[in-house]
C-alpha cells in the first residue's frame, strides 16, 4: 500500500527519510567479539549437527510430524503432551525477561538467530569482498571483472550456506539420512523441496540483506524489551562525563591540558556498529547490545594509553554515581517464577505416566434396568498409550463389592501413541446390600506386560433412588 498517495499524510513525508543506507559493519576484535563468535559456533554447531546424532535406531531429535510424535533423546512426546511444549515456551519467555532485566539485550547481541546468522554472512562477505573500506569502495565502483568475481563468489557462498540451512531445518522434521540420500538422487518430495527453499530463502534474505532492519522494523521483542529495563539493568553506555568534549589529538598529548575528554572522535564505535548507530548519542532502541563498540573503543583506549571502559557495560545508576543493585524485586520475582516453572517442568516430565485413562459416562442413557433385576451403566474409556510399542490393557473395577464388569475381564490392544476408545458396562444388583442410588466407582487399567504401568479413573454410577 502506498501511504504517500493518500491526502492525509504530509506531502513532504519522503524528505524525512533518507533512502535506506546499507550499513557496512567494520571488523572488530576483542573480548566481546570473541564471545559472540564462540556463541555462534556453539549455537550453529547445535543446529547443524543435532539432526545427525542417532539414538538407537532413530534420530535423537526428530519432530516426526507425519506420525504426530516428537522424539527428544529417549523421550517421545505425543499430541497429548502438548502441555509440555506450552510450558517450555512459557519458560523460554520468562528466561528472556529474566536475562533482559539483569543484563539487557543479551539475547539480541549474542544468541538471536538473526544476529548469529548475520555474523556468518558478514564473515562470508568479508572473505570474498574484503574489509569494510574495500566493501564500500567495491559497491561504489563500476562493474568490472573483479567486482563480478567477488560478488559472484559471495552470493555463491551465501546461497550454498542458506540451502544447507534449509536442508538442516527440514532434517529436524524428516529423518535427515533419508533426506540426504533423496537430495543426492534429486528425489525430494514437493513440500520438502518447498520448505528447504523457503527456509533457505529466509536465511539468505534476513542474514544477507535485511540484517539490522529485522531488529528495527520486524522484531516485537526489540520494541518491548525496554519494559523489562530499569536503572539497574546492564546496558551499553558511553561515559559522556569522561569522553566529552571529544576531539582528535596526537598520541601523547595530555587531553586535560588540551581541554579534551577521552573520546578521540575516531568514529570506530560507529563503524563497527551492525545497526549503524552512534552509541555516544545515548541508549537507542536500535542498539542490539552486541558490544562491538566496547571492543573497538577499548582497542583505541589501549593504544592511546587511556584506561579502558569509555564505552562499557554499565547501569544507569552507576553512571549517575549510585550503586547498582543486582537483587531487586523485578529480578527476584522473575527468578523465583523461573525456578518454580523449571522445577515443575522437570518434575512433571519425570512423573509423566506412560499411560492415561479418561472415563466418560454414556451421554444418552443414565442407566438401564435389566430383566435380571440388575442396573447397568455404560462408559466410554479413553485409553492413552504413550509408549513406543503396542500394549494390551486389562480393565478392572477397584474396591467395588456388588459391582461387576461386563464383559468380566475386558482386554484392549492399544497401538503406540494411540488414544483408544472402548465401551464397557458396569452392572450392579439393584437390591444389593449397598445403599441404592448414585455412587462412585473406580475403574483401573493395567498393562499385561508390565503391572507397574497402570492408571485409575473415577466415574459416577447412576441408579434409581429408592
Amino acid at each position, binding site marked *: *500500500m502506498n501511504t504517500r498517495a493518500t491526502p492525509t499524510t504530509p506531502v513532504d513525508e519522503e*524528505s524525512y527519510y533518507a533512502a535506506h543506507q546499507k550499513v557496512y559493519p567494520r571488523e572488530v576484535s576483542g573480548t566481546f567479539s570473541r564471545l559472540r563468535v564462540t556463541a555462534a559456533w556453539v549455537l550453529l554447531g547445535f543446529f547443524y549437527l543435532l539432526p545427525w546424532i542417532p539414538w538407537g535406531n532413530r534420530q535423537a531429535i526428530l519432530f516426526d510430524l507425519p506420525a504426530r510424535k516428537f522424539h527428544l533423546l529417549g523421550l517421545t512426546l505425543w*499430541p497429548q503432551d502438548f502441555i509440555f511444549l506450552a510450558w517450555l515456551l512459557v519458560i523460554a519467555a520468562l528466561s528472556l525477561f529474566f536475562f533482559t532485566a539483569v543484563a539487557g539485550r543479551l539475547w539480541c547481541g549474542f544468541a538471536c538467530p538473526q544476529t548469529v546468522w548475520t555474523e556468518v554472512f558478514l564473515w562470508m562477505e568479508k572473505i570474498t569482498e574484503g574489509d*569494510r573500506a574495500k566493501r564500500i569502495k567495491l559497491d561504489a565502483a563500476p562493474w568490472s571483472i573483479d567486482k563480478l568475481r567477488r560478488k559472484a563468489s559471495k552470493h555463491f557462498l551465501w546461497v550454498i550456506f542458506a540451502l544447507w540451512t534449509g536442508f538442516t531445518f527440514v532434517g529436524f522434521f524428516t529423518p535427515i539420512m533419508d533426506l540426504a540420500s533423496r537430495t543426492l538422487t534429486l528425489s525430494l518430495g514437493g513440500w520438502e523441496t518447498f520448505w528447504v527453499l523457503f527456509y533457505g530463502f529466509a536465511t539468505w534474505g534476513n542474514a544477507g540483506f535485511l540484517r539490522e532492519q529485522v531488529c528495527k522494523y*520486524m522484531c*516485537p521483542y526489540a520494541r518491548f524489551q525496554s519494559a523489562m529495563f530499569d536503572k539497574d539493568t546492564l546496558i551499553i553506555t558511553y561515559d559522556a562525563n569522561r569522553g566529552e568534549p571529544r576531539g582528535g589529538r596526537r598520541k601523547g598529548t595530555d587531553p586535560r591540558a588540551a581541554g579534551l575528554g577521552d573520546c578521540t572522535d575516531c568514529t*570506530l564505535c*560507529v*563503524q563497527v556498529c551492525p545497526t549503524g548507530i552512534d552509541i555516544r548519542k545515548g541508549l537507542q532502541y536500535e542498539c542490539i547490545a552486541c558490544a562491538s563498540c566496547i571492543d573497538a573503543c577499548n582497542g583505541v583506549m589501549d593504544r592511546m594509553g587511556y584506561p579502558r571502559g569509555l564505552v562499557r557495560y554499565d547501569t544507569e545508576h552507576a553512571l549517575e554515581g549510585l550503586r547498582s543493585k543486582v537483587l531487586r524485586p523485578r529480578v527476584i520475582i522473575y527468578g523465583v517464577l523461573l525456578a518454580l516453572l523449571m522445577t515443575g517442568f522437570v518434575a512433571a516430565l519425570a512423573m509423566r505416566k506412560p499411560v492415561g485413562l479418561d472415563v466418560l459416562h454414556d451421554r444418552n442413557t443414565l442407566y438401564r434396568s435389566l430383566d435380571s433385576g440388575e442396573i447397568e451403566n455404560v462408559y466410554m474409556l479413553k485409553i492413552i498409550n504413550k509408549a513406543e510399542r503396542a500394549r494390551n490393557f486389562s480393565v478392572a473395577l477397584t474396591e467395588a463389592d456388588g459391582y461387576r464388569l461386563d464383559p468380566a475381564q475386558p482386554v484392549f490392544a492399544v497401538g503406540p501413541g494411540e488414544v483408544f476408545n472402548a465401551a464397557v458396562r458396569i452392572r450392579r444388583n439393584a437390591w444389593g446390600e449397598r445403599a441404592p442410588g448414585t455412587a462412585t466407582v473406580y475403574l483401573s487399567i493395567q498393562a499385561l506386560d508390565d503391572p507397574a504401568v497402570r492408571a485409575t479413573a473415577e466415574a459416577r454410577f447412576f441408579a434409581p433412588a429408592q
Partner: protein
Amino acid sequence: MSPSIVPDEPKNVANELAPHKRLALTVTWCSFLSASLATMIFFAFVDPAPIVAVLTPTAALAGRTELYSLGFLFFWLVCALASALTAWLVSTQPPPRP
C-alpha cells in the same frame, strides 16, 4: 594508526527505510509469527488426516505433511490479511479535527 579510512559523515536525516517498505516487512513477519503459533496449537489438538479422508473420501489420501504445510500457509495468509488491514487503517487515519 589512522582509524578511519572512510569517515562517516554525520547524517542529517534518519537512515530509515521508506514507510511502506517498513509496513510490508512488519506485516509479513508478525503474521508469520502468529501463523506459526496458530499452526502449532491447532494441529496439536486436531489431526487433519482423518478429517480430510472423511470430507473427500474419493480423492487421493493427503499426507499429514501436506496438510500441515497448507494449514500453515492458510494461517499465514489470514494473519497477513488482518495485519495488513490494520496497518493500512492505522497509517491512513486522518488527523483529529480541531
